């Protein structure tokens, strides 16, 4: 099978797109790098060059040296931008405080997001980072790349920006760190016209959706995470670029309950792949695990001697619902009792696989602590088939939900907080779904039910005279 893009994808060839020649790209020697001194005092940062973990300072220094040796007309913002950033970082360490100013509204015409304004509060000392705006570039789903694309991005960003970036930001975008206001539109034009590439989200809008590796290279994914992520990102471009929401809104797509993109902790709408039929069992492979022929958990514990594999102790006894047992040397599963936690499948990937009748569970409302404390997503829709173009999800779930939140949500109120404020019953009403016990860990322990008048026989209208006719004052 193959997935088709919504519009033809321009083939990008670095050799046709490039700005810098090979000589320019290889413009310093290792010896020069060893002897290179940044123009500011960065003694505290240099302490971070040693040790085995990749040093971002060592990397920044080579970026700085590379810039220093480019010709004047081969970059459109100041040459010193990396050196100045390092210089400011050193002062921030000394001061124990950041030196970036609060906010700054910049952007590209017609978009309310994708660019984050940033200015140094030490512009006299570090003029090249006086403006240091970020651009968020919407990454391809699950972050596979070809070098033709990446090299082209690098040339664009070195020429018109600082050459410093994040691969990737927390939400998933490629982050371009630091350019001047003048270059924002030119970068955007090159991205869209030449690289057929858009910016991501920021501000009170749909943030750049992200997904796990899915079926591209994982045997457990129950959904086409990349395709869902791509389709919904494209379908909701207006919501992504033009802030009209009370606050940010995140979609994240996990292919299975292992939750590798942490959708349950950080997405307002968490899509988690699951199945509703039976775990597939290969009894021969179960025997091989029991006989020690295959390392458990895909070899994840190879670094330590945990003794021989014990299926009873390591799988059956750890099953949270105790729905597994051995019978005549065969592993039996009572699938009706299974809650699909993935433990047994994780331990014995060659013997057990998720079922084949797959879909998504949808959960709502996760967020970090700002403001009323962290929330995880609430299990709301147990199972939903999801086939492209996912109209059932768009029409029956996303849009009614957004209508409610845009109508009722207060400024800077995340969906999870609105659900808390107005109650889960309101969420059910909005989605037109009945309640289920799966929505709660346990039923409420207080009887403070907000009964509605129509729930109670005879309604609420009563006369005190009638009451007094039965009861003396």
């Amino acid at each position, binding site marked *: 099978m193959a997935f088709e893009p919504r519009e033809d994808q321009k083939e990008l060839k670095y050799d046709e797109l490039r700005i810098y020649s090979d000589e320019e790209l290889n413009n310093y020697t290792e010896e020069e790098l060893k002897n290179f001194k940044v123009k500011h005092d960065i003694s505290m940062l240099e*302490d*971070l060059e040693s*040790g085995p973990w990749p040093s971002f300072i060592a990397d920044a220094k080579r970026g700085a040296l590379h810039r220093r040796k480019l010709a004047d007309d081969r970059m459109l913002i100041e040459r010193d931008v990396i050196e100045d950033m390092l210089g400011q970082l050193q002062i921030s*360490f000394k001061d*124990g405080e950041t030196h970036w100013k609060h906010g700054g509204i910049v952007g590209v015409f017609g978009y309310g997001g994708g660019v984050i304004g940033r200015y140094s509060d030490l512009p006299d000392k570090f003029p090249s980072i006086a403006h240091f705006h970020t651009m968020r570039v919407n990454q391809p789903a699950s972050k596979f790349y070809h070098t033709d694309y990446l090299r082209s991005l690098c040339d664009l960003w070195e020429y018109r920006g600082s050459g410093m970036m994040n691969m*990737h930001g927390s939400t998933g975008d490629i982050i371009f760190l630091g350019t001047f206001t003048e270059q924002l539109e030119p970068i955007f034009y090159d991205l*869209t016209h030449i690289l057929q590439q858009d910016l991501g989200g920021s501000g009170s809008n749909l943030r750049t959706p992200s997904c796990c590796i899915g079926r591209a290279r994982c045997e457990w994914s129950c959904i086409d995470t990349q395709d869902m992520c791509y389709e919904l990102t494209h379908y909701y471009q207006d919501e992504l670029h033009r802030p009209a929401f009370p606050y940010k809104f995140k979609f994240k797509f996990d292919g299975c*309950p292992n939750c590798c993109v942490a959708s349950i902790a950080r997405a307002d709408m968490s899509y988690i792949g699951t199945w509703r039929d039976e775990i597939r069992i290969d009894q021969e492979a179960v025997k091989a695990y029991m006989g020690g022929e295959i390392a458990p958990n895909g070899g994840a514990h190879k670094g330590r001697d945990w003794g021989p594999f014990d299926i009873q102790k390591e799988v059956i006894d750890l099953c949270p619902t105790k729905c597994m047992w051995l019978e005549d040397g065969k592993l039996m599963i009572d699938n009706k009792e299974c809650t699909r936690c993935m433990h047994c499948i994780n331990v014995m990937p060659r013997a057990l696989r998720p079922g084949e009748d797959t879909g998504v569970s949808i959960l709502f409302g996760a967020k970090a*602590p700002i403001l009323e404390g962290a929330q995880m997503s609430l299990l709301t829709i147990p199972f939903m088939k999801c086939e492209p173009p996912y109209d059932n999800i768009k029409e029956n779930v996303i849009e009614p939900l957004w209508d409610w939140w845009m109508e009722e949500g207060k400024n800077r109120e995340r969906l999870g907080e609105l659900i808390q404020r107005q109650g889960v019953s309101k969420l059910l009403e909005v989605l037109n779904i009945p309640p289920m016990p799966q929505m709660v860990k346990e039923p409420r322990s207080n009887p403070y039910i907000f009964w509605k008048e129509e729930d109670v026989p005879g309604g609420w209208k009563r006369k005190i005279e009638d009451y007094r006719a039965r009861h003396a004052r």
Partner: protein
Amino acid sequence: MGLSTERLGLYNPEKPMENRITDLGPRHFWQYFPPIIQNNYGKWKYHEILEPGVLVHVSETGDKVFTIRVGGCRFMTVEHVREICEIADKHCDGYVRFTTRNNIEFMVDSQDKMEALKKDLQSRKHVSGSYKFPLGGTGAGVTNIVHTQGYIHCHTPATDASSMVKSVMDELFDYFQGMTLPAQLRVSMACCLNMCGAVHCSDIALLGYHRKPPIVDNEVMESVCEIPLVIAACPTAAISPTKTESGKKSVKIKEERCMFCGNCYTMCMALPLSDKEGDCVTVMAGGKVSNRISPPKFSKVIIPALPNNFPRFPEVCESVRRIIEAYAEGANKYERLGDWAERIGWEKFFEKCGLPFTEHLIDDYRLAYDTYRTTSQFKYTEAAWNVSKAVGGVE
């Protein structure tokens, strides 16, 4: 058409809307899947970690893809990205992938290619000696730390991110390259409570935190901030309107009500909080996002404040190592840090990790009651005897 080189490129500031293309979205993923991935999409049968950092996935078709996972910095220059491209061109037909946790994955379709790739990756070091592409981050070990911008680019941090991550990963490097723990252990780092990296469900979370109430910049308050919004932004209603002596509208802070969340500063630049002595690192532990065995959990605050000791954060590194060592020794196979702490009891967690339990760790915000222990079941530790002694219950 190549990338433009004129000062303003394709953009004409005289006619800003001319030829503007919008709403393109991201590029399509399929073209970036190498052939081995395209051919076996949805057909993967199982995988195995061959050694730390090296995985093989086997397809129903019999195809195998070998993946080498290496640690990466979230912050990188174009020079580093170009080196990644050079490796991808040399070994992987130009394809490469990044993970959610800022690792880099190179994929090849045979064992021989994998061995050559591995050798190449291991040989690359920065001139100062650190690895550029350390293999690891798989299985029952510590993988890369996801983190936020810190002093490199953010206006609200209470600490720096990249430097703390570098320091902690140096400290935990053996765990990154080994698979010696009872289960995977996810460390995350956020520079302030905004947590643009969501760290609140991590095995170990490092969180920059302010500890001094905002300073009011009376001179500019009325001109740069919407005072009603600032007042409404405070979750504890600690902000109220006032007038300065010169008659300017401003706000005053009831300092004892401040919980230092910084939400007011997010709304208003005239209320800065950061402070060299006040800002600190809070350590949380025991969270997870996987549904495996037990449901996802929040991380709990276990160390209220460690100093922002730039650039190497020795106290943070030492504490994290101590927690991981206690976990490695005490937990059962497959048991995540939080599951271990719950099994032995949090009182034992503090004892085994050698961490003091202070009053800061007892919740006193909303819903605090949910965390109170309301049973006679507990274990005796030194902390318990100290209470008994204090009331004259024991000698």
